[in-house]
């Protein structure tokens, strides 16, 4: 629900991805497919209709051989806080049927498939292409329906889906906490599948508001940046890269501008 602008966010779950560590192996993607019942088709080579809650994008510095460099950029849903961090992320405000909303207790942008009627306005609004449409009925051939997880409902044709930061894991962790009569979750109790699967531990996840969580410090790393910061989407996914060209690719700059020197209102970010 749209709360007033003064609403205090209790927790803001976010992610810091160290691009220097990421090898582009794709384990995050596959782990996400398996965790979230993401379907597959016979042909997935058209990446524009392939459902991925997290994509690993390959960027190059465009320099000729052998000065070429590549960098992999894992892109889940950025869980934007929106302008002024009031939950007005690009997608939430446009959804005509409140199928997507901003949860002020976790900072996570939800997507309810059974509410969505497939107008795709949110996809038009999201500059990160984090939102995917179910163009086809999902099909699991042979006995593959047997590996579907009951914690995430499979999506029907005609609705939009996206990364939820594995919110069901938060729900399950809360259940466990209730059972043990605890109110708070430990940092390691709630971790998305991609973060857990990363073999090189390039991804860190936690509450950006909680000084006890690793992300709290990491997001202030001198090489930390966010994608398209200038658009004031206020993503909760941060990146770290020691490479200037990678940081530059993260946003758009005029020829005379550089990420570090930019005096933008978006810079006052934390």
């Amino acid at each position: 629900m749209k709360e007033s602008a003064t609403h205090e966010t209790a927790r803001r779950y976010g992610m810091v991805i160290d691009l220097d560590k990421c090898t582009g192996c794709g384990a995050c993607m596959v782990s996400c497919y398996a965790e979230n019942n993401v379907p597959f088709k016979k042909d997935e080579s058209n990446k524009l209709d392939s459902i991925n809650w997290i994509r690993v994008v390959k960027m190059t510095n465009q320099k000729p051989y052998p000065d070429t460099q590549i960098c992999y950029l894992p892109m889940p849903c950025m869980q934007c806080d929106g302008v002024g961090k009031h939950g007005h992320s690009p997608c939430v405000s446009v959804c005509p049927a409140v199928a997507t909303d901003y949860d002020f207790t976790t900072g996570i942008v939800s997507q309810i498939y059974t509410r969505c009627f497939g107008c795709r306005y949110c996809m038009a609004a999201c500059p990160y292409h984090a939102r995917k449409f179910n163009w086809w009925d999902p099909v699991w051939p042979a006995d593959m329906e047997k590996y579907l997880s009951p914690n995430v409902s499979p999506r029907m044709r005609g609705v939009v889906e996206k990364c939820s930061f594995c919110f069901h894991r938060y729900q399950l962790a809360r259940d466990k906490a209730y059972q043990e009569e605890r109110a708070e979750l430990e940092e390691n109790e709630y971790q998305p599948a991609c973060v857990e699967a990363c073999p090189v531990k390039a991804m860190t996840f936690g509450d950006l508001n909680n000084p006890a969580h690793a992300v709290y410090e990491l997001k202030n790393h001198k090489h930390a940046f966010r994608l398209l910061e200038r658009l004031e989407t206020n993503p909760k996914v941060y990146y770290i890269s020691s490479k200037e060209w990678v940081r530059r690719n993260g946003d758009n700059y005029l020829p005379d501008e550089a990420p570090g020197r930019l005096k933008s209102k978006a810079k006052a970010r934390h």
Partner: protein
Amino acid sequence: METPLIPPGVKRCPTWQFALWMAAVGAVLLWGVYAMILVWWKGLNQTNMNDAYGFALWIWADLAVIALGGGAFFTGFLTYIIGKDKLKGIINYAVIIGFICYSSALLILAIDIGQPLRGWFIFWHANVHSMLTEVAFCLSCYFGVLTIEFIPLILENPRLAAKPFLHHLSHNMHEIMAVFAATGVFLSFFHQGSLGGVAGVLFGRPFAYREGIFIWPWTFFLFTWSAAACGPCFTILVTWITEKITGKKLVQQDVIGLLAKIAGWMLITYIIAKSIDTLYWALVTAPGMGFTLMDFYTDHPIYNIGILFAEIVLCGFLPALILITRRGRENGFLLILSVLLAVLGCSINRWVMVLQVMAVPVFSFESWFLYSPSWQEVATTILPVAYGVILISLAHRYLPVFPQEKELNPAN
């Protein structure tokens, strides 16, 4: 004696000729209906849209017909509220065109959504902050208004008018038409504006997004204003085409001239406002987001900078200047050329605000997203055209659409 179906005192083509014409258009209609059923049955995979290009031909068609259907509300506004009685010669037709445009827009929306059977969620579970909600509400309400405006005209069919109740109903509705028209203007003003907002609020899309007053009220105002300017142009254009096809003069030239003059002034003010908006966007808004103007255009045949020139100069200033000069208006060719250009300009604007928004890459490491519609999309987009032609043909044949027809064609 049976009351005739065709209004008295006018001549209509023979039944067989009309049937043939209807059959031809009907075939196109059926093709569209087939495509529509395919899309509903098999889903949106029948289109060539994709995750990066979620809005495409249909949404453009939607925005375009709504803008062009704006002739109804604006002519209604002029006729019933400003009191330009002269326009009564064309208001009926404007209403019919508006009715066609709005019903088409609703139909296209129903095809365009992934879950048509849940479409009513937009009303029931409305998110009042979404432009699309506002559009859907006002669109449907205004469609209701147009229906109310259309009904008395239908009731004027001789055979229906023979029934006292229907006759009185028609009469009474005419009596309070100004109230409905006012409501229609109110609704139109909002939804036309909201349609502008649909793209304007996308702050993740630097091509569409506007800042500060350029989003509200400017973007809203621009859309409303352009619909008010180009809607009447479309009415004039369709009237002209109808006259050519029927081979009859249907509306007095001074009625057309008055409407054209008003449209011309609307257009010139609109295009000046649009130019200011474009300049501010190109010089201030976009650079603030790290873009130069030319980042938004490429050497693609459709997405090149020429489209901006076409929209603003060729289909904006040029027709506007012709229409505001008396000699331009009085020259039949120039008049039709300029309304045609204005209609094109408006369509280009809606095209750009929908499709180019999708096509422009937001990240420097992305490339342009290109898309060409599938035949199902084309067919369903042509469907409303065929439907419109059929409705116009029926209306023209059986209803007294043009009050001046009898006096303009005395020989009949």
